[in-house]
């Protein structure tokens, strides 16, 4: 019984990680660019 339980949880858990990681990695890139761009604007305004 526990073999099946752990196998299912492992597949679900690891699979969720892979899917979420891929999605987050791609979507975070423009957010990082925005964060740095906003800070660049802040620097220009200060100057």
């Amino acid at each position, binding site marked *: 019984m526990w073999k099946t339980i752990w196998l299912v949880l*492992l597949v679900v858990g690891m699979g969720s990680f892979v899917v979420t990681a891929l999605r987050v990695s791609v979507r975070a890139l423009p957010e990082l660019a925005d964060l740095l761009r906003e800070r660049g604007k802040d*620097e220009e305004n200060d100057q």
Partner: protein
Amino acid sequence: MNFGIIDWGIVVLYLVCTFGIGILAARRIKGVADFLVAGRKLRINLAIASLVGTELGLVTMMFMAEEGFRNGFAALIIGVIWGAAYIVIGSTGFIVERVRRLRLLTITEFFEMRYSRGVRALAALLLVTAGTLGMGVFLKAGGMFVVHFTNIPEVYLNHTMTVLVLIVLVYTVMGGMVAVVITDYIQFIILGIGLVLATGFVFGHMGFGRLYDSAETLFAATGQGANPFSHAAYGWWFVIYMLIFNIAGCALWQPVAQRTLATKDPGIGKTLFRTTSAMFFARAFFPIMWGVGAAVYFAGKAEAGTLAATPQLLGMLLPTVVSGLLAAGMCAALMSTYDSYLLAWAGVIVQDLVAPFAGRSLSDKARVRLTRIFVLMIGAIMLVFGIWHQLNCSAYRYLLEVCTIYYAGGLAAIVAGLYWKRATTFGAYCGFILGALLPTLYILEDLLSQGSSHHVRDLCSGNVRGFLSFVLGFAGVGIGSLLPIGKPKALGYPEIEEK
């Protein structure tokens, strides 16, 4: 061992890039809000990547792998509880939603708002004590991985750790949270790839079915199977203790809370927890499977210690380039954890122990400078403690004890403070002190006797002791608040909208 020149090249290239980012980010620091919470401009995906990047630390990998090595498949219950706690918080917004609305820089600020400056200082002291004690173990675990995975002679363990700590100190001191966010993102990607590949190689070498059956045979010899509820190291007490513990962690653990506080709005905070629950399942599942693989491969024997077995296995199984990628990811994870935690504890010291008592004379610039100084001091303490202290239990158990020092009273105080109007300052003091009592006695006995004395340990199991600590914390806040000592402060925060 397959770790060669190419692998070292990958690791060095990564370290150089990380260092460069820290230098560049240093130019963009505005003030203490910038330094500590990236100016509260983190959006959801970057917040997730940054949180996971910090929490997917090498230390976590190592102690999860050690649990797998010692306890087999039953250890997977840890990941299940972790993920469940994040789902509970993410679905309900329990504690985190209200805290984010307060626009705090640290969680301990809440304790001054709701109770008094003294409670804030006590909370900060317990938090920093727990955090700093824990970081000594981080260093040991990190060192064991690097030495046994890359086959560096163990005599260079301390030198290796010193070099890594120095690199982390430089870019943390210079870059603050912006540097942390950027490097966390890169590390998130590299480590994610490394995790999947390493697990693929372990399963490819052994196969799940064969791994499970071999583990069952091996652990059956000690009477422990794959059922966590009947396992001597876990059981129902562990499940209850860990669920409460992890909920406390979501609300109180400064590196986690810093991401919550850094999000653009409270709604993103809840989503952050829901989405990262999958990460926290995997954070345990991947390394525990490596640990089980190591137990089967070495037939449960760990000549260099239970922490060393898994990196030794991975060093043997992974080919060149994959080893380099995993090593780079793990070094990145190590430094990511260090930089976030150094920043967290230094931030708490400055914001909660120094600034409230220095008055309004402490400028933003002075706070940033002080934070950097404390980062260096904590780094030095971490290095000395990590080299000197010998673990007398599993790394995971040790970390549970040190964190409970703060969590037990902290959870009671923050829950009562947010949801119970009658909670008083005296109650908060009682909660913190009573909650910290048992784990503090355990740690003190361990440190002072170097593991030779067991009086506190023999009183009850670690799981019962942990659960009782939370009970004492809540009892302290409850009973202390009901006593006619002091009056509760009104819950009049303009930022909180009562539902």
